[in-house]
């Protein structure tokens, strides 16, 4: 509205990536604001301006959800092989080495036993930073062992999902992990035990079409991209314009595909409350801490 026939004058500041000292500041993909990295860490990796949920490291996620010192990791010794001897522009071996180096983890999921409030659970935490959280033999095997051990020890399962799907570099061995993990879910379910899936940004494709969707309760973090096929593939195949907010957690909630979208600061509280209701009857439920 030009009341005085005068154009509004803007001062535009172009902030180029190289202007930002590496490591200290980060640009929020949600609102475009430049956020101080330490402030972000203190705010559970959630943008203070727009509540955009940044990815969390495994250590941060475990600290967020579990009681101090209650985490004990299981099956940390499993390593990816290169059964297909896969070579593209770079080889799978090189990719693995690079991802192990940059993340400090041997593969894309950490599994273990932990306490969430008073509940002894089997917890899996996926890591998108490791090869897009993709599921190859190791991820499939670790998730399966996690669920099997939970069945044997009568623990609820909680899996924090983040994945681009099955790992291409292990071909059909990866695809079959979908069946394997789902089989373990079937037995855990038959044993009358609860499983809560937490979908974080992004959870898609082969992981979404297996254990991520098999939770008795499925909750998602705000804004998380969740779906089966990628938006680009859908656009190219169908030549359709995608609706606004397509494949976000909120879109899925609107369509009745999720139980709840929960802000990260409330995640632990909601998990404890759900586990209070879902904890298997007959199992000793420790009294909540005073």
């Amino acid at each position, binding site marked *: 509205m030009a009341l005085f026939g005068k154009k509004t004058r803007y001062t535009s500041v172009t902030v180029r990536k190289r202007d930002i000292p590496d490591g200290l500041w980060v640009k929020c993909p949600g609102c475009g604001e430049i956020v101080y990295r330490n402030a972000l860490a203190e705010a559970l990796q959630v943008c203070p301006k727009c509540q955009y949920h940044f990815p969390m490291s495994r250590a941060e996620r475990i600290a967020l959800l579990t009681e101090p010192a209650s985490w004990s990791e299981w099956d940390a010794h499993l390593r990816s092989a290169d059964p297909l001897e896969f070579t593209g522009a770079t080889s799978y071996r090189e990719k693995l080495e690079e991802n192990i*180096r940059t993340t400090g983890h041997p593969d894309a999921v950490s599994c273990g036993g932990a306490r969430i409030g008073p509940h002894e659970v089997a917890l899996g935490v996926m890591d998108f930073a490791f090869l897009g959280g993709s599921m190859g*033999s190791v991820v499939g095997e670790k998730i399966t062992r996690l669920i099997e051990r939970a069945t044997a020890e009568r623990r609820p399962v909680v899996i924090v999902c983040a994945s681009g799907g099955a*790992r*291409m570099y292990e071909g059909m061995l990866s695809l079959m992990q979908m*069946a394997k993990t*789902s089989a373990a879910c079937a037995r855990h379910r038959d044993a009358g035990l609860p499983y809560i899936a937490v979908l974080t940004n992004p959870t898609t494709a082969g992981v979404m079409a297996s254990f991520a969707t*098999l939770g008795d309760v499925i909750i998602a973090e705000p804004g998380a991209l969740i779906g089966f096929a990628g938006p680009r593939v859908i656009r190219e195949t169908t030549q359709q314009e995608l609706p606004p907010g397509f494949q976000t957690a909120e879109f899925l909630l609107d369509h009745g595909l999720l139980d709840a979208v929960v802000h990260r600061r409330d995640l632990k509280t909601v998990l404890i409350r759900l586990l209070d209701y879902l904890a298997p009857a007959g199992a000793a439920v420790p009294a909540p801490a005073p």
Partner: protein
Amino acid sequence: MPSTYVLPFEKPIAELEQKLRELHRFSEEQDIDVSGEIRRIEEKIRELRRKIYSELTPWQQVQVARHPQRPYTRDYIGAMMREFVELHGDRRFGDDAAMVGGFATIGSHRVMVIGTQKGRDTKSNVRCHFGCALPEGYRKALRLMRLAARFGRPIVTLIDTPGAYPGIESEERHIAEAIAVNLREMFTLPVPIVVAVIGEGGSGGALGIGVGDRILILEHAYYSVISPEGCAAILWKDRAYADRAAAVLKLTAADLRRFGLVDEVVPEPEGGAHAAPAMAATLLAAAITRALDDLVRVPSAELLDARYRKFRQMGIWIEGAADAVPPGPRDADPAAGA
């Protein structure tokens, strides 16, 4: 059904077949006996076909698996089975033309047969999305499988799909859940399940009806975690590298057998199933019947246990040293890549 669609590497065969037709015409028109020459060319065609089909590259295998004249699910049902009673719908939303199912009889077995269906022409392909099933397709499949289980009928699934349908409605009706629930529930059905990949085994869309006690794959079918084109787009930023992608993905029947992911490779007639569909159906019917003969004798608890163990052992990894932690920054700053 004489094959009229010629794949690039089949050209030498097509040329000889053309020559043979000309010779037949010449012989008829001129009333000259050229039977010696005809026999010679026929033998040459057989030999050439044998040679070409025994040396197919993985990408050529994919092309054979996608051959538009290859028999599809309904063709196999028609040729292998009798007394087919088709059943429709998922009882929730709709009836997916890309997922066919119903009771049928094969050998001495009354079974539930379920399979993904491709179209032969534009009209039928529009109806069944080129063989890409929708959520209601997978839910229809599960409904029929549960029906079969309730009445003790074994299940036969036929897989021929480029993948589950990637569309807005698929996501809105939760294709991921439809597939995931099938995977889980197929481990609980107390009747024999025989799975046969007859053409394209396209990723999760194929696996969505692919859990079973016996996994068969036709000689020239393929089964892959991603399409060669999709893989090429990721690795080389260009779908034109699909031939290289097909090779690195190890998606052929022989590769899958080597990795222990399928139980049996069912031979196809020389020149592929499209060259002799009736023969292809006979070979597949024999393999399915054999599998059913074995499986119907197994008590259901044992069957379910074996099915679990079968998929449980899939995967190849290294059991590293228990205390070995890879070098590098544990938990690099999570915002680093943002």
